[in-house]
C-alpha cells in the first residue's frame, strides 16, 4: 500500500508506441461489438480501458491477443502488423493475456499452471519463477495444490503469475479485481504497479475506475463499442462524466 514514485520515473519508458490499434471493428456474427476504435499503449505505460458491462472491453483485449479476428482495422505491435495472427503465435512476441474470469487450469497444480505460462519456452525460466513466487508468496504455499481448490484471490494471483512466466512485454489484464475482497484488490493493484515498474507495459481493463485511473498513465472510456473519452489518469479522474458514472448515473456523451 506504499505510494510509489510517479509514472515518469518508470524504467523502460521511451515514449515509443508499443501497441497501436487503428479503426478496429470486431463482430460476433451480425452483431458489431467494436465499432471502429483507435488507441495505443506506449512502451512502459499502464493504460486503463474503462466502461460499463457489455461496452466491449473484453472483446477489445481478446482481439489484441489474437483470440478474436478483427472485421476491420489494424493492430500493430512493436511496428509489426499482428491482426489475424493466432494467439499461440502471438505470445512469442511477448503479448500475455490474463483473461476475464482468471481461467486457471483447475485440475492442474499451481506448479503446473505456472509451467503452462512458460509453455512457449523449452522449460520455465527459474529466475522468473522465483520472482513470481516472491511477488505471490501465497502461490508458494499452495505450490502442489490443485488450482481449482484455490480462493478467487489466489486464482487471480496464479493467473497473473502464469502470464508473467511467459515474460510479457505487454500484459493484458481483464478485470483482475472482479469479485475480490477490497484488501486483495489493493494487493493486486500494488502488484500490477510493481510489474509495470519492471518495465512491462500494461493494458488494464477495469470496472473499478477510481483505482484503475489512479494507477494508470492514461485511460480510455468505451461505451457500446465506441470510445467516448480519453485522457491522462488524472484528467479522467477529475472528469464529471467519469464521476457521474461512479455514482451509477448515465454517461453523458
Amino acid at each position, binding site marked *: 500500500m506504499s505510494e510509489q514514485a510517479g509514472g515518469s520515473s518508470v524504467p523502460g519508458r521511451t515514449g515509443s508506441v508499443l501497441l497501436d490499434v487503428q479503426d478496429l471493428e470486431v463482430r460476433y456474427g451480425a452483431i458489431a461489438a467494436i465499432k471502429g476504435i483507435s488507441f495505443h499503449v506506449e512502451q512502459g505505460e499502464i493504460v486503463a480501458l474503462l466502461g460499463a458491462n457489455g461496452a466491449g472491453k473484453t472483446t477489445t483485449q481478446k482481439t489484441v491477443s489474437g*483470440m478474436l479476428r478483427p472485421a476491420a482495422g489494424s493492430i500493430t505491435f512493436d511496428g509489426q502488423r499482428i491482426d489475424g495472427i493466432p*494467439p499461440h503465435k502471438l505470445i512469442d512476441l511477448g503479448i500475455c493475456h490474463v483473461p476475464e474470469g482468471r481461467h486457471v487450469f483447475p485440475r492442474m497444480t499451481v506448479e503446473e499452471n505456472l509451467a503452462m505460462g512458460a*509453455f512457449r519456452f523449452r522449460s520455465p525460466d527459474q529466475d522468473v519463477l522465483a520472482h513470481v513466487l516472491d511477488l505471490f508468496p501465497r502461490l508458494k504455499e499452495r505450490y502442489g495444490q490443485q488450482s481449482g481448490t484455490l480462493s478467487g484471490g489466489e486464482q487471480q494471483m496464479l493467473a497473473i503469475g502464469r502470464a508473467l512466466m511467459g515474460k510479457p512485454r505487454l500484459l493484458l489484464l481483464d478485470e483482475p479485481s472482479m469479485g475480490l475482497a477490497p484488501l486483495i484488490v489493493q494487493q493486486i493493484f500494488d502488484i500490477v504497479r510493481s510489474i509495470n515498474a519492471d518495465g512491462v507495459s500494461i493494458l488494464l481493463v477495469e470496472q473499478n475506475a477510481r483505482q484503475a485511473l489512479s494507477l494508470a498513465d492514461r485511460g480510455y472510456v468505451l461505451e457500446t463499442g465506441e470510445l467516448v473519452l480519453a485522457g491522462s489518469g488524472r484528467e479522467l479522474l477529475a472528469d464529471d462524466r467519469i464521476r457521474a458514472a461512479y455514482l451509477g448515473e448515465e454517461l453523458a456523451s
Partner: protein
Amino acid sequence: MSEFLNFLMLGLTRGSMYALIALGYTLVYGVLQLINFAHSEVFMAGAFGSFLVVHLVVGEGEGLGGFEQLLVTLLGLVAGAISGAVVAFVLERVAYRPLRRRGAPKLAFLISAIGASFFLSQLFGKLFNRLGNNQFPDYLHKGEVLWTPFGARIKLLQVVIIISAVLLMIFLDRLVSGTKLGRGIRATAEDAPTAALMGVDIDRTISRTFIIGGALAGAAGFLFGYAFVFSNTMGFIPGIKAFAAAVLGGIGNIRGAMIGGLLLGVAENLIPTAPWVGGDAWIGQEWTDVVAFVLLILILVFRPTGILGERLGRAA
C-alpha cells in the same frame, strides 16, 4: 479355484486390450468432447498393419526361441502402433478437422465418424479379400501353458499381452502427466482457448492426441489379432466394449479408462461363469457380451460420469 483363475486371466487379458483401446476414446474425448466412433477401425488397422510387417520379416517363423519371440512381439507392437497412429492421424485430418474449421455441429462429427468407420472397414475388407479369420502364424505357441498355479492354466500369450498392455499404459501415464506434450494435451482438454493463450497450438495438439490414441489402439490390434483371429469387421465388438470401458472409468479420465477396461474384461468373464468353484457355470460364457453391455447401461443410468468421474476434460 482353478476355473476362477482361468477366467480371471482371460478377463485380464481381454480387459487390458479394452483398456488400450479405451484410452484412445478418452484422450480424444478430452480434447474434442467427441466420441471418435471410427476408433475401432484404427484398432483393426493395427492388426492388419502388424500382420503385414511381422509376416514380411519373420515369415512363418516355426520353432522360435524365447528371445526371438520377444523380438516378434516388440516388432508386432511397434508395427501395430505405427499403423494405428497413421490411420488415426489421417482420420483426424480428413474426417474431423475440416468440420472443426467450419464450426460444424456435434452431429456432423458423429456422422463423419460413422462414414469413416464404414469406409475403413470396407477398404480393409477389399484389400484382404474379406476373410473372416486371418491368422498370425503361431509364433508364441498359443496352446503352451506357462504355469499351473492351483491347477489353473496360465499361458505365455496371456502373460505377454498383459505385460505389454501394462507397460504401454505406464508409458502413456508418464507421457500425459510428466511431459510438456502431456501438459499441452491436458490444458487443451481443460480449457482450449486459454491453452492457446499460453502458446499451445491446439490443432497440433489434437493431431498428436489422435496419434497417441491411435498408436495404443494399433498395438492392441496386434495383441488382439495375435491372440484370436483378425478381419475387417473385428473392431466392432471390442470397439464398443472399449467405449463402455471408457464410460465405466469416466470418459475423459485416463486412469479411469485403464481401470474401466480391466474391470470390464474381468467382469464380463467372471460374472457369467460364476460360481467358478462349483464347476457348473451360472449362465455360461456365451453371456459375456450381454454382461458387458448390461454393465454399460447400468453405469449410464446410475453413474453417468463413471467410476472416477470425468477428469481430463471439463466436468459433465
